[in-house]
């Protein structure tokens, strides 16, 4: 019988994706573009937050959007209506966006004439958390009707995000949702995370969100220019 040998590998399973994501960050830096990966459950308010962000920031920054949500152009149309370019990825039944899909979308965009690219990731709190998209910052939305127990069910997502936007705070008075309990649960998983409370409907808190985003863009563009 032939010898059996044990070969040590220690190689990241998604190393190809990670390498491509790093390449994307290089391309973005060369074009001085900041990219944000926005994740949430279906109906959490990704597209609403993007529309609000565009309205508040398009005077100061040239924005582009990558729409990843499953096989429909509804969201892309909403974004284009706001006067910014959007690329719709046809993802079929895919549960997440990976670096190769983002690269395809970026190839379609005029990066020289953009400052900010927002990825509207697929509505899912599980799979997108595992794939580096090449973005500089990861953001997630949790909407009040989803409940304050979500960090317990999707710890990975909460642990990889730089910022958590708690959307639909206009529902707080009728929802069984304890903001302080939520924050405590989130900070336990991720002490560095920034939490911003907003309502895309009433506009409350949107300014805090755009201020956070603006600061991140400025910091990034400053370091990219060095």
């Amino acid at each position: 019988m032939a010898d059996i040998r044990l070969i040590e590998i220690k190689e990241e399973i998604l190393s190809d994706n990670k390498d491509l994501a790093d390449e994307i960050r290089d391309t973005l830096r060369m074009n001085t573009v900041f990219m944000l990966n926005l994740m949430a459950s279906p109906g959490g308010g990704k597209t609403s937050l993007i529309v609000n962000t565009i309205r508040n920031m398009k005077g100061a920054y040239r924005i582009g959007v990558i729409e990843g949500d499953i096989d429909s152009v509804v969201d892309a149309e909403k974004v284009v209506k706001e006067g910014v370019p959007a690329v719709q990825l046809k993802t079929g039944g895919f549960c997440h966006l990976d670096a190769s899909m983002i690269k395809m979308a970026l190839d379609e965009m005029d990066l020289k004439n953009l400052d900010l690219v927002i990825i509207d990731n697929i509505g899912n709190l599980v799979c997108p958390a595992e794939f580096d998209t090449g973005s500089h910052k990861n953001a997630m939305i949790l909407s009040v009707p989803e409940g304050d127990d979500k960090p317990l069910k999707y710890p990975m997502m909460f642990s990889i995000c730089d910022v958590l936007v708690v959307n639909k705070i206009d529902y707080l008075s009728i929802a069984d949702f304890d903001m302080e309990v939520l924050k405590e649960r989130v900070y336990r998983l991720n002490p560095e995370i920034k939490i911003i409370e907003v309502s895309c409907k009433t506009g409350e808190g949107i300014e805090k969100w755009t201020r956070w985003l603006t600061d991140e863009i400025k910091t990034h563009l400053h370091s990219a220019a060095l």
Partner: protein
Amino acid sequence: MHELAVTESILKIVLKHAQTNGAAKVLTIGLTIGELSELVGDCIQHYFDYMSKDTIAEGAILDIERSPIIFQCNDCKNTFPVSLRDTKDFACPACGSIKFALISGREFYIKDITIS
């Protein structure tokens, strides 16, 4: 779930290392996946069996080791494991602090393979 994309990567990496080492057959594949990952082991094996047909990795057994969720306390530097069920309510068992950093639980790599 994204087991299919993950399995594709596993097969690619395994075949690369098997070929470099002149393997005739891959027998087992050791994976280390953090407890925080939602991947379903049975599902990966199932996809793997399908995708590895007619390669030297056909029939290989995936041996998945789940690495525990471990935090390090920012205040006293104590390290301690936390079960996935307890992630809502825990504090450093040594000093009671609730400020810590995750140091294990997100692993996602191929540890080793056995070949003949």
